């Protein structure tokens, strides 16, 4: 599974959404599946999948798929 697959899998696992929804514009708070509880579950899923620990500021900044990708990039995860 490549990194993009892992990212998509995390979203789908947590939010039970169609994988086709996991695009850069998919944003926190704009879909009922991505609420605050799902956000923390997503963080846990991403941390497990990529073997890292995110900072609180990063968690708060993860407001869209594009932002998630950017922040994971800071940790050396490339897509």
């Amino acid at each position, binding site marked *: 599974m490549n990194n993009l697959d892992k990212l998509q899998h995390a979203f789908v696992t947590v939010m039970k959404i169609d994988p086709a929804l996991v695009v850069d514009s998919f944003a926190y708070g704009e879909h009922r599946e991505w609420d605050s509880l799902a956000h923390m579950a997503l*963080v846990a899923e991403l941390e497990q999948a990529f073997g890292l*620990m995110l900072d609180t500021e990063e968690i708060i900044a993860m407001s869209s798929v594009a932002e998630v990708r950017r922040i994971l990039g800071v940790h050396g995860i490339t897509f």
Partner: protein
Amino acid sequence: MSAPSPSLLDLQGKVCLVTGASRGIGLACAHTLAAHGATVLMAARQADALQAAAAAVNEVQQGPCAVAIACDVADPASVRDLFQQVFRDHRRLDTLVANAGTMQDAPIGMVTAELIDRVFASNTASLLYCAQYASRLMARGASGGSIVALSSIIGVQGHAGQAVYAGSKAAVIGIVKSLAQELASAQIRVNALAPGFIDTELTAHLSPAQRERALARIAMQRPGSPADVAHAVLFLASDLSRYVTGQVIGVDGGMVA
């Protein structure tokens, strides 16, 4: 009903983080948790004192079970670095003992804004900072974890001249009760201890008269020791308390206001 198995107190393979661990109650907690098999991560601001404290624990246990990590828990960036190190080196956390704090008294007319900020940062905000990261690390494991926050009998009963300290420690109880509800589904237990008069450096400055007045309020007629508090921490860190969450446990010898 059978007696509890000794294994319920066995902390082998567990990773416990104790803040304010260079002296007093925190150091006693580190000794006690290490004595029951835990790997103990000891955090405090003063690196030299902390290193000496960790060395003392390792000497007693005759092995490298304690690790010193310098950290100011009132500083969010320092807490972030602490937990990044915990994650990097251990990948898990089973128990957080949020013990670091400060006691600074002043009559209400002499309380400064700076005093309020300092006391609440050390005693209250620090718990929130640590619990944020600790709960996420604990949630990674199937067995969850235990957060033990040090409140105070002053936070429960109040005391003249200690409005700021009392407020900061009462807030700890509100945080604990909220987190207990929020984190229970992840099998993370969150409890508070409310020590009474404990013989530590925090109480060493009391005059003989003040000390006598404090002792007169204790039904057991003696001050507590840091080990008395550490034993309660051990209970909350162990599987003996696996169904206990959201509680405030007094460790005060029957102290009354």
